[in-house]
């Protein structure tokens, strides 16, 4: 299974995603420059974290017009796996591949810390390898991760299993205190209706090795591989 990691001007977790995939997951991976017009040949496109275009105006607002995004949108439409992490998630909502919007944390501060996630839907390509009831310890690092969608959209998302991750306590309880950024209903990650596009604010690529304090992020990448192999 071949991964592609998109590099926008200002991406800075591209390297981390690349290493997680190449050195820990041990799968082929290549960088994709933002001016590429095709993403042919890849099985999964990762939009990494960072500050594309400085996150000026709004996070992800300018990056979504990069030439590469046109082909990412087409790739997604044809069922391709697209995975947005942090800034990548912001790009995905801006470009309309995912519903809702992400804006300023209610605390008005950038937050970098470990969070605990419950997996609300284990039936997506991104979560099929997660054991039932498992709480994932994965760090966040963002200033604009406050998820918003209007009531009607949220209802539809709930019904359709599009809310994939919520912030929780270590014991898996979804509480107000466990919410680091004010996201509606503690939402940390969502997918599209078809479940082939997922965006999440926490950084699974930062928790793939014991020496980094957690390996819980690895299961998301492993899910992708297992899903893909299941298709063969």
């Amino acid at each position, binding site marked *: 299974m071949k991964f592609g990691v998109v590099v926008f001007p200002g991406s800075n977790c591209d390297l981390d995603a690349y290493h997680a995939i190449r050195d820990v997951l041990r799968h082929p991976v290549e960088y994709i420059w933002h001016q590429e017009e095709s993403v042919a040949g890849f099985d999964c496109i990762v939009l990494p974290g960072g500050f594309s275009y400085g996150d000026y105006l709004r996070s992800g*607002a*300018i990056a979504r017009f990069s030439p590469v995004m046109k082909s990412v949108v087409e790739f997604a439409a044809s069922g391709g796996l697209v995975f947005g992490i942090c800034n990548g998630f912001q790009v995905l909502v801006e470009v309309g591949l995912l519903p809702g*919007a992400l*804006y300023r944390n*209610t605390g*008005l501060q950038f937050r970098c810390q470990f969070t605990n996630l419950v997996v609300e839907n284990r039936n997506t390509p991104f979560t099929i390898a997660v054991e039932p009831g498992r709480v994932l310890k994965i760090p966040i690092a963002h200033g604009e991760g*406050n998820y918003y*969608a*209007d009531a009607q959209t949220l209802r539809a998302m709930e019904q359709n299993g599009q809310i994939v991750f919520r912030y929780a306590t270590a014991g898996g309880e979804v509480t107000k205190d466990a919410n680091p950024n*004010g996201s509606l209903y503690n939402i940390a990650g969502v997918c599209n209706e078809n479940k082939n596009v997922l965006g999440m604010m926490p950084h699974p690529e930062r928790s793939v090795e014991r020496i980094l304090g957690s390996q819980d992020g690895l299961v998301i990448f492993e899910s992708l591989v297992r899903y893909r192999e299941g298709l063969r």
Partner: protein
Amino acid sequence: MWKARIEIMLKKSVLDPQGQAVEGALHSLGYDNVRSVRVGKYLEVDIDGGDKEAAGAQVREMCERLLANTVIEDYTFTVTEVQR
């Protein structure tokens, strides 16, 4: 040349943490008669050529496509003629 002045605000239904923080800060400075504060963005865009209507249409399009995120934001703008 045309100057567009664009104001972008979070929709009423979206919580405005920044506005709340500023309101709190104003209260603690003793401005007790401050009732509500909302914080948004202000942009000035200079546009060459065309008439006022065309400039306005262009600004609207730029807001819809890039400048505002209409899922959470509303925008208003004015266009006035300026000397180069």
